[in-house]
């Protein structure tokens, strides 16, 4: 049994890759899967903070690649889910510390250890770290914001996924591409100030696997080191739960796409 490898990528920075990686990995673990989530952003480690395990990092991804630690030593077991593990990025090495052979060895090791899913949190950009994060993937979650530079960059990433990955090179069948629209504001879409789900789908020619509304709870979750999917009361958390279910093959309708109806006083006085 080999693990399914999912890369979370975007091209542009700051669109929500790490937030998505943390929630996706947690959601898959909640569905009973054995999951490892790996931070590929060597030199700018952040997944550990979002997962709330930053003080438990002893060994990291680069240590394992270079044989300075075993996978077992470097995997950090999640506090909340016993079948969820984090592999942190190195904070001190430079980005050339990862090699294709080294990454392959780690992914194979995780597969042998019985992991069902490996979530690869890609760095921004299209350079080596991003390339290695996507190279071995079976699925890709392309995180995009409804904003011009993010949409353009994600189209570039979709092109790279279709050509510069192991599956593409071997002709093993295409990577499954999932478009995830984050920081979506139904109010601004309704007023014509933000690209809609349909706009983004039309421009990129692929349909979304989920839409995460802009939500104060995302910041609150990262402040406290708890993936937002665990905040079951927040719209963002529920939207992430739906997204994970869809990636696992379930059919669920999109939610939280409509602007809330205004009350009488709001209609009279605006706001």
């Amino acid at each position, binding site marked *: 049994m080999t693990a399914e490898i999912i890369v979370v990528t975007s091209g542009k920075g700051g669109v929500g890759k790490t937030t998505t990686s943390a929630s996706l990995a947690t959601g898959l673990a909640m569905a009973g899967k054995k999951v490892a989530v790996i931070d590929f952003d060597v030199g700018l480690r952040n997944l550990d903070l979002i997962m709330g395990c930053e003080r438990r990092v002893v060994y990291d991804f680069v240590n394992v690649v270079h044989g300075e630690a075993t996978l077992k030593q470097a995997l950090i077991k999640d506090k909340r889910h016993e079948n969820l593990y984090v592999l942190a990025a190195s904070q001190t090495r430079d980005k050339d510390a990862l090699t294709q052979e080294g990454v392959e060895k780690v992914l194979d090791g995780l597969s042998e250890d019985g992991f069902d899913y490996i979530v690869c949190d890609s760095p921004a950009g299209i350079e080596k770290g991003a390339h290695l994060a996507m190279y071995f993937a079976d699925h890709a979650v392309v995180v995009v914001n409804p904003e*011009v530079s993010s*949409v353009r960059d994600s189209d570039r990433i979709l*092109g790279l996924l279709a050509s510069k990955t192991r599956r593409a090179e071997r002709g093993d069948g295409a990577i499954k591409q999932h478009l995830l629209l984050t920081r979506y504001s139904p109010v601004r879409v309704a007023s014509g100030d933000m*690209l809609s789900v349909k706009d983004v789908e039309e421009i990129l020619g692929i349909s979304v696997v989920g839409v995460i509304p802009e939500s104060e709870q995302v910041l609150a979750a990262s402040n406290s080191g708890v993936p937002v999917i665990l905040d079951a009361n927040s719209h963002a958390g529920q939207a992430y739960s739906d997204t994970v279910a869809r990636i696992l093959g379930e059919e669920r309708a999109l939610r939280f796409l409509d602007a809330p109806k205004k009350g009488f006083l709001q*209609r009279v006085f605006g706001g």
Partner: protein
Amino acid sequence: MGILDFLKRKPEPTAGLAKERLRIIVAQERSTRGAPDYLPLLRNELLEVIKKYVHVDLEAININVERDSGHEVLELSVALPEGKQAAATPAT
């Protein structure tokens, strides 16, 4: 729309503009994807040559690589400015 809304200055909605701009740039970038790296350079050098005879902008030169059952065709078109008797003829 509230009755006091007219007091606020309403900027024009911009999402439609964003969509239109993206549609064009994404289509353009897809058409050059996987094409040889020398195309932009070739385009610039062609512009220099064409400028010796007639004044055109970089945007007037279109280069595409079409793949057609096993062989590649380099397609080149130059839009000449209107109203002038062109000294050069569009190449295809």
